[in-house]
């Protein structure tokens, strides 16, 4: 039996009191595509950073082609032929394709660059590997995300790698680009490369990988063959939690309609959206990037103006001219990038919590500090915000607690409609559950809640109804009690349209890698 291309054994890594990795094993056979899946916080990125030589493991061994490495850094790892394709596209925008491709390994003529030769060579390589032509003289900033990704892959290929590690490569790609990427990765495997593919999109893993390692809470819980293990089983391995206990949901009888959209449309983003939101109801909204779901929510935030149709609030036609306008009309907005839009990181917890309703604490144009303190202490206790006190800057709070502050600031305002954009992204499980509890409480108090999320189990757990958007239209509506992630995803990806993956112009090229 030959030695595996990559073998990590018993890797442990501690950050302070948290055990990020606990005796993790990862064995990748030569010439295979190995998937690595796990929830956020399961330890995927820590493991990759250990492999990349960025973090040093507390214990455990790493072997490449059977050769055990000790005390390695990023450079040694690269020299051994392990290359990484990061999810952020690490290429300077003002560079031409040739410059970006040969960056740091420039083609020279004496001390000078050979720009034209680089561009020519870049075009040749792209044609050879991927049968692609980029517009001549194009700058990186003019390429789309998929093209940049391909450029990164080509750049990695120049170094004649043995192992390529893809770290969440498809996050910002649309479906067609993902298919193209997957086909390219298969092509690379067929040329003999070993691939490690990290993603939390299980469909990609299923269609791409030969073996899958599942991580949970910093441990390897299973190594499975995706051809014989269903996506649902893999998902269960990842989560291993009773969905019911994680999503505290109380049954509320929906009241009257609060917000209604009639035939709403904006440009090519979305069209003919009919939707009504009742009191006491949590409605889930989902769709892939480019499906228009995000844009629809942005319209309700007052960030994008719809061009057709109408919005009715409490039965009256209305328009949200700006987020400020929407807030004044009683809508609570919790945007996705809470650090940018949701909270003011440098202000204290108290200031953030009272910011949305300052008028309530104002007497004769001055703020009443005692009132503010009392109200914020009440909210801190009620929401279980973990903070040293109401004077702590929000910046020092964890992601989950920041999110609670972002939600909490609306609570005192008696809002009728809550619009939440990816409320649980990037926060740990415990905090997630508290956020879910909060959402369910809002509904119980008679608010209507619309949640946009790409976390399907979450949507199923917290909402009453789920709306799925596909290519700008509402594709389907599901009763949350009678649907599973697979059906939602099939609907969101338009799988019922019969799109086959792998339609990509990759040739079965026999050219040796440069």
């Amino acid at each position: 039996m030959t030695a595996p291309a990559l073998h990590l054994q018993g890797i442990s890594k501690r950050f302070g009191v948290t055990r990020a990795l606990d005796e993790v094993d990862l064995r990748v056979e030569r010439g295979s595509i190995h998937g690595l899946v796990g929830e956020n916080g399961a330890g995927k990125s820590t493991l990759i950073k250990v492999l990349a030589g960025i973090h040093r493991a507390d214990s455990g061994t790493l072997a490449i082609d059977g050769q055990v490495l000790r005390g390695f850094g990023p450079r040694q790892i690269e020299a051994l032929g392990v290359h990484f394709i990061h999810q952020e596209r690490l290429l300077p925008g003002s560079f031409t394709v040739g410059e970006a491709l040969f960056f740091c390994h420039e083609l020279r003529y004496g001390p000078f660059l050979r720009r034209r030769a680089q561009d020519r060579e870049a075009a040749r390589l792209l044609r050879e590997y991927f049968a692609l032509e980029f517009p001549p003289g194009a700058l990186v900033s003019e390429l789309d995300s998929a093209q940049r990704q391909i450029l990164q892959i080509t750049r990695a290929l120049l170094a004649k790698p043995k192992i390529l590690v893809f770290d969440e490569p498809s996050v910002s790609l649309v479906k067609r680009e993902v298919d193209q990427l997957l086909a390219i990765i298969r092509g690379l495997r067929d040329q003999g490369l070993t691939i490690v593919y990290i993603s939390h999109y299980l469909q990609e893993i299923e269609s791409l990988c030969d073996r899958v390692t599942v991580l949970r809470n910093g441990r390897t819980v299973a190594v499975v063959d995706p051809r014989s293990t269903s996506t649902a089983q893999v998902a269960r391995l990842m989560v291993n939690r009773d969905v019911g206990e994680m999503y505290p949901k109380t049954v509320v009888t929906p009241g009257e309609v609060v917000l209604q959209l009639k035939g709403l449309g904006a440009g090519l983003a979305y069209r003919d959206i009919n939707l009504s939101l009742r009191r006491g109801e949590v409605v889930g909204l989902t769709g892939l990037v480019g499906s228009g779901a995000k844009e629809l929510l942005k319209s309700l935030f007052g960030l994008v103006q719809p061009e057709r149709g109408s919005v009715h609030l409490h039965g009256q036609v209305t328009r949200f001219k700006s987020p400020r306008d929407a807030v004044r009309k009683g809508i609570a907005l919790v945007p996705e990038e809470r650090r940018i839009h949701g909270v003011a990181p440098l202000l204290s917890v108290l200031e953030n919590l009272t910011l949305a309703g300052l008028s309530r604490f104002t007497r004769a144009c001055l703020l009443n500090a005692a009132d503010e303190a009392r109200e914020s202490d009440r909210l801190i206790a009620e929401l279980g915000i973990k903070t040293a006190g109401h004077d702590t800057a929000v910046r020092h709070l964890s992601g989950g607690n920041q999110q609670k502050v972002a939600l909490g600031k609306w609570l005192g305002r008696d809002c009728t409609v809550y619009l939440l954009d990816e409320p649980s992204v990037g926060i740990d499980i415990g905090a997630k559950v508290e956020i879910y509890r909060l959402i369910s409480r809002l509904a119980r108090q008679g608010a209507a809640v619309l949640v946009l999320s790409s976390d399907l189990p979450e949507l199923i757990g917290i909402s009453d109804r789920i709306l799925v958007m596909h290519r700008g239209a509402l594709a389907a509506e599901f009763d949350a009690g009678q649907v599973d992630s697979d059906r939602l995803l099939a609907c969101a990806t338009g799988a019922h349209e019969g799109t086959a993956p792998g339609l990509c112009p990759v040739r079965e090229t026999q050219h040796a890698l440069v």
Partner: protein
Amino acid sequence: MPWSEILAQPLARRLGLLVLRRGSSGAFLLILAVLAVTAPNFLSPGNIANVFAQSAILGILAFGLTCVVIGGGSNVVAGGLDLSLAANLGLCAAVYSSLNNAGFDTVQAIGLTLLCGLAVGALNGFTVVVLRLPPLLATLASMNLIAGLELVLTQNSVLPTDSALLDTLAMGEWLQVPALAWMLLAVALLLGLLIQHSPYGLRLYAVGEYPEAARAAGLRVGLYVFSSYLIAGLCAGVAAFCSAAYFSGSTTGSGDMLLSVVAIAFLGVVFSRRLVANIPGTLLATLLLGFLINGFQLLNIASFWVNGVQGVLILLVVAMSSALRKEEGGL
């Protein structure tokens, strides 16, 4: 982001780029044409050579600033900036005058003066790279420090001096082009080759624009940023000789050139396809400003108007390029 925006954006952006790029070259030509028609003797070879020579000091300083902007990123607030360049020139000129008057031989005087410029560059590089101060504040502080040192050295007076080197720079001519003009072109050529045509230059661009990418490619980002401040310091030293030749010694008030230097370096951005700071663009911007000042003189327009025009140019260029960058960020 809605599709309509995605579709519309590149077009709007392309249009913006087109206006900015073509517009700036067009404006340059228009200004030349207007001055050529209205100002007497504007296009005579003697006058053009004169403009080149008079632009040498500002131009060489602006080349230094261009390198710093490339290496530190073009964000005006957080990116690379060296406000101490003009003060550095003043100090170097004072150092050279003092050394020359104290009887140091030519090579020593020149070497020590350039070393002084480099030392100031190293100080800036140290505060920016090692102490991680924002370049705006770091170089503002060093500007005051250096201006103070200059005052200590000169007692706030003019230090007249005379040497064969200064005579050559002030009076020398080759092919009927004054020596100062040759200095400008020589520095432009050298830095142009280094920045636009060598791997070092390309990497410096990457360091400034996307430090994470440069780090991921295995570059030592701090070293590159530091080197850009060294180049700027060296430029200040070289410009000091031009200044000393022009004024026959060190003068007070060299700090007044700062606004012009910043204006030129940022104006140079619009003369490139990628809208980044670059040496040829800075040369063009230097000449544009030189012709403008020269034309105003020929037309007998008060010279404070030049300051006003510079201010407007800075505002326009910074506003337009940051507007375009915002669009890019949204993509």
